[in-house]
């Protein structure tokens, strides 16, 4: 009985989380990530550098005793780095038990985007960064680039390999 209730609750939770995105900005673009991945949002913190990491991984931070890595999404998308300010935020996301902080310029809001308002990204390779973008959401007059969290985290290995071969 209890488990049935729990299941119901979980379904409800998922329902409330479905179609909701946390939106943030990097420069001029607006991005969104599914809210179910987001654990919390914190202000910028002192970051401890760790050697041998790719440049977009800025280091590790102490989140209440838990040590998590942080990634500068700007650098991940090969944009110009920007100095961190009061407005800079770290979005802590949790994917497959891996916690990681994403450094973004500003966090905007939590927006609901219906499935029918989400377009697949353009197929051609002309658009920038589209390998991390899994959809384009329309919200009123604005357009949000919806990110594939899994890809942000995991594709770096193949990339690293590629760069090593070039060297």
């Amino acid at each position, binding site marked *: 009985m209890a488990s049935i209730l729990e299941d119901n609750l979980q379904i409800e939770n998922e329902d409330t989380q479905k179609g909701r995105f946390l939106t943030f900005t990097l420069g001029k673009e607006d991005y969104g990530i599914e809210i179910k991945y987001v654990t919390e949002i914190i202000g910028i913190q002192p970051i*401890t*550098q*760790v*050697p*041998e*990491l790719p440049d977009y991984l800025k280091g590790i931070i*102490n989140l209440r005793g838990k*040590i998590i890595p942080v990634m500068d999404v700007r650098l991940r998308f090969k944009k110009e780095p920007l100095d961190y300010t009061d407005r800079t935020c770290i979005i802590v996301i949790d994917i497959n038990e891996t916690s*990681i902080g994403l450094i973004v310029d500003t966090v905007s809001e939590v927006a609901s985007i219906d499935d029918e308002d989400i377009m697949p990204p353009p197929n051609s390779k002309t658009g920038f960064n589209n390998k991390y973008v899994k959809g384009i959401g329309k919200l009123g007059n604005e357009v949000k680039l919806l990110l594939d969290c899994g890809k942000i985290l995991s594709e770096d290995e193949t990339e690293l390999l590629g760069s090593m071969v070039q060297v």
Partner: protein
Amino acid sequence: MSDYINTEPMQEIFVFETSQLIEQLEQIILYSEKKNGLESQINEIFRIMHTIKGSSAMMCFNNISLLAHSVEDVFFHLRENKPPQVDYMYLTDIMLKVIDFIGSEVVKIKNKEESYKDPSNIIHLLTNFLSDLKTSRTGEEINRSAHEAGEPDNNPGIHNYAYKAVITFEEDCEMESMRAFAVIHTLQQVAYGISHLPEEILDKDSCNKEIRAKGLTVRFCCRLPESEVRQFLEETMFLRELTIECEPVHADRESSEETEICLPGMEEDSTGKNSGEPAEADKLVNLSKQNFISVNIQKMNKLMDVVGELVISESMVTQNPELKGLELEGFKKAARHLKKITGELQDIVMSMRMVPLSTTFQKMNRIVRDMSKKLEKDIVFEITGEETEVDKNIIEHISDPLIHLIRNAIDHGIETREERILAGKGEIGKITLEAKNSGGDVWIILKDDGRGLDKEGIIRKAIENNILQRPASDMTDKEIYSIILLPGFSTKEEVTEFSGRGVGMDVVQKNIDKVGGTVQIDSNPGTGTTFSIKIPLTLAIMDGMTVRVGPATYTIPTVSIRESLKIRQNDVICDPDKNEMIMIRGQCYPILRLHRIFNVKAGTGKLEEGILILVESENESVCVFVDSLIGEQQVVVKALPQYIKQVQGISGCTLLGDGSISLIIDIASLINSKR
């Protein structure tokens, strides 16, 4: 049955209990072997085997329960009939085989492997042994021994009747074996010394057929007169025919063949007998019967993490910069109290992870015994300080090195009997294993009184194998001895069963390194060798020197620091590749600039403004250049996030008092990365 029920938690308990019992049994056997004979421990061994038999039968591990059953038979005979001449040496050997068998089976069960071995050859040994014991009554059926202990009758002397009952069931009743089993089960309430034909009542067709054809024959002893027994048995369901023969029992047990080996075994009985035995024996039993609860190690780790966080957040509160300059007497008092409690809490959590070394040490007993028998060397093995407690993680790492060292000591160290007599030493070799606390470390010292290490031989061999890094004349004795810990070194010409493949000693070094320990070797030709292993109490907390490099802080384990020194620029030697070196007391060390290796902005690029730390790992030393020393403190070691994976030169990280992170430097991999 196990197909239908989820047996996982039960299996876990079974594995846990059985391995504990087996360990206890091994201790008892080895202990009583030293004290010449198992006699004083028969009851205890019987009890353990009985428990194992019961629980393994319940879990359907028939091979274990069959084996346990035949061991039980032997000890039952020993206990009840006290045969005067027993070859306890041989019995000990068999028992150790039994222990090994059950032990390995339990491991298989734990790992969920399916291939259950057949214990029949050990059972064969046991039955032969038992029948040898009973030579006076040859031809007797061994298997007819007592079926079960725990009957309510305390005094076998006053039983009145022995019965033989033949029970047949109605033809269409089905599941005869189950019914037969039920009959015997109910009989146990009023009778004892029950034996039956067919001997094995199993839920099998063959068994069913046999009972259907011949009926169930039960022999038992009972106080009740025949009429009452008949009445009792007639209550059996689906009963078709019942014949009961009564055979009065003589007071003299020998005369009654039927019941002679079917006497009841009582646990109460055994404890009663125990009380008269030496207190020492009781102590041994008590040692292994402490009050324990087993806790999932994950939970322990979590608890420790949380306590670690608590300690940090405590100092974040009490040393908060916003409090600076304020006079807060009440707050300070409360803060001190909090500090005291958190400190205590941390100590307790640490101590919870501590396990005495005794189980690891006891394992060595067995190795010494087996090896000394095989190599025909008489060896006394002494253990002291086995109650010393060490963190669980560390214990797991030192067991292998100890086994290697002991094997080496027996194989290479201790001489043969003849050699010992020639050298004017006692015939019996001696190995001592000692553990003691000193400061924050634990010393494990293994001493043998064998021939000692052959210095010349080691050097020769090292040159042959090309593993000598410096001229031998420059090396101290200790350095020469520690060559044997290098990979690919073995002085023994031929490879024996136990040691000599040249792997092993470097395993010792590797394993000890892993837990942050060190190995020292000392030896005197002709009088023996001493291995001193220093290991830290725990892996989770470590003494570290915190250093600053530009904006970053790093922690260097204090164990690897030899000294720190200020130098002048012109002390530094540069080679054409711009590798910097420094001469300290005639030794040349490379300088590693930490800011270059870790690619951080250094506070200073000038060597005279910073400080050099001479660090050593695996007999290799380098000087590490940092901006400044911050101080030495105990730090709680945390792993780097998995996402970051392995970083060369970094073994983990720790949180400093102000909440900032300091990376812990792994000196060994730092030196390796330099290459």
